[in-house]
């Protein structure tokens, strides 16, 4: 899950950068860049959840 999360983080960034390079109008670019950040947030959630300690761990 950690690896998937990290890959999603990078994929979101790739979407945002590709939108700037490939698209021409501001609304299109904006929509895809925000979508890229959405993918990044998903990746961040996965990375964080993969690291959540079990209840009572380390007591």
């Amino acid at each position: 899950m950690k690896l998937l999360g990290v890959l999603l983080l990078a994929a979101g960034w790739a979407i945002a950068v590709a939108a700037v390079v490939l698209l021409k109008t501001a609304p299109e670019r904006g929509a895809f860049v925000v979508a890229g950040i959405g993918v990044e947030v998903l990746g961040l959630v996965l990375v964080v959840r993969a690291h959540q300690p079990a209840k009572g761990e380390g007591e």
Partner: protein
Amino acid sequence: MTPASVLCLFFVFLVPLAAAGLSLINTGLGRSRSAAHAMLASLCVMAVAAIAYSFCGFAWQGFAGGAAHSLHVAGKEWNWIAAEPLFLRGRLLDGSPASLAVLLQMLSAGLAALIPLGSGADRWRLGASCASAALLAGWTYPLFAHWVWGGGWLAQLGANYGLGHGFLDAGGASCIQAVGGLTALSVTLILGPRRGKYPTYGTPAAIPGYDAVAVLLGCFLTLLGWLGLNAAGAILFTGAEPGRAVLVAANTTLSAAAGVLATVAITGVRFGRPDASLCANGWVGGLVASSAVCAFVTPAAAVAIGLVAGVLVTFTVAYIEWPLSIDDPGGAISVHAASGLWGVLALGIFARFPDHVSGQWLAQVVGVATLIGFVLPLTYSLNWLLNRLYSQRVAPEGERQGMDLYELGAGAYPEFVTHNEEFTQQ
């Protein structure tokens, strides 16, 4: 040296006060049995960062207009890394803007490397924190700072793709604060929580900081440091006139003021009385958010940005602790990453330019996407690899004893005096 260079040098000399302030805050929010360790780690991390940045950091960061490597994508130049010689060879340190930038960056890299210490408090080994600082100051920080301040592709988004003036950040809300804050997140995830923080039943245990006075004194020092950092950054990296330093200083102060007052009000309502450590975090959160916008917004906008930063810090500190179960004793993730990202976005919302260019908000959002989607995986991977080679977390015995005794052999506050006579008479 010109009068403007002398003024800029004076601003750079204030920056170590920000480091002193952050060190006091990080130490005060930890436990007393790790206090000497926390301060020594701050000193060592600054030292390692200065040397790592001088050795290879500036070579990869460079200065706008200097030698750099570029890729050509769809007919546009993508300047991605500088190509300066290692160890500042051939660079005249003579008061020129590039030499002042070297000095400022040497200190800024240390400031960024100090940020994760707050998150790793009470369990991060001294050697591991120094190694992590070397990676941050020698690679992660210079790479992103080149993109923003060294004429890199983020700075060129305006010229290449018509996105406003390209990604802008006067005082380092992204390059210093968000990079440091995201590294703090990585380190915290890799280290795991302190022992006893998350019990089997009930809510997380509160492990309060041991010295609220040190924390609040640190807040005063950070203001001085931030005034220098933001003013020097605005002059060196955004081409602001030296006279604009007055606006920068006013905005920095107002943003911090609004941040702390927002936190005082919220914690007063939520808990019945203000919480000193959260209020300190609100103050620094306001400073962090001001770093991006200080040269581009009106004082009224700076107040609004600081207010939002204070609210953001208060709620993210609580959310990160529970339910996300991320143990961040210094609140560095909320204060530096969340507020830094907010400051970057706020520039796109509040900044007004004389030439009325459009698309600035999109350049700022692309910068945020780069921080979360590139810098975070990079710094996480580097610290994960480091952890595989050299365990970053102290042994359980070290957590029980405290970092002072375990790693330094002596506490910060010994409550006894050893007299030579006691030994000689026996």
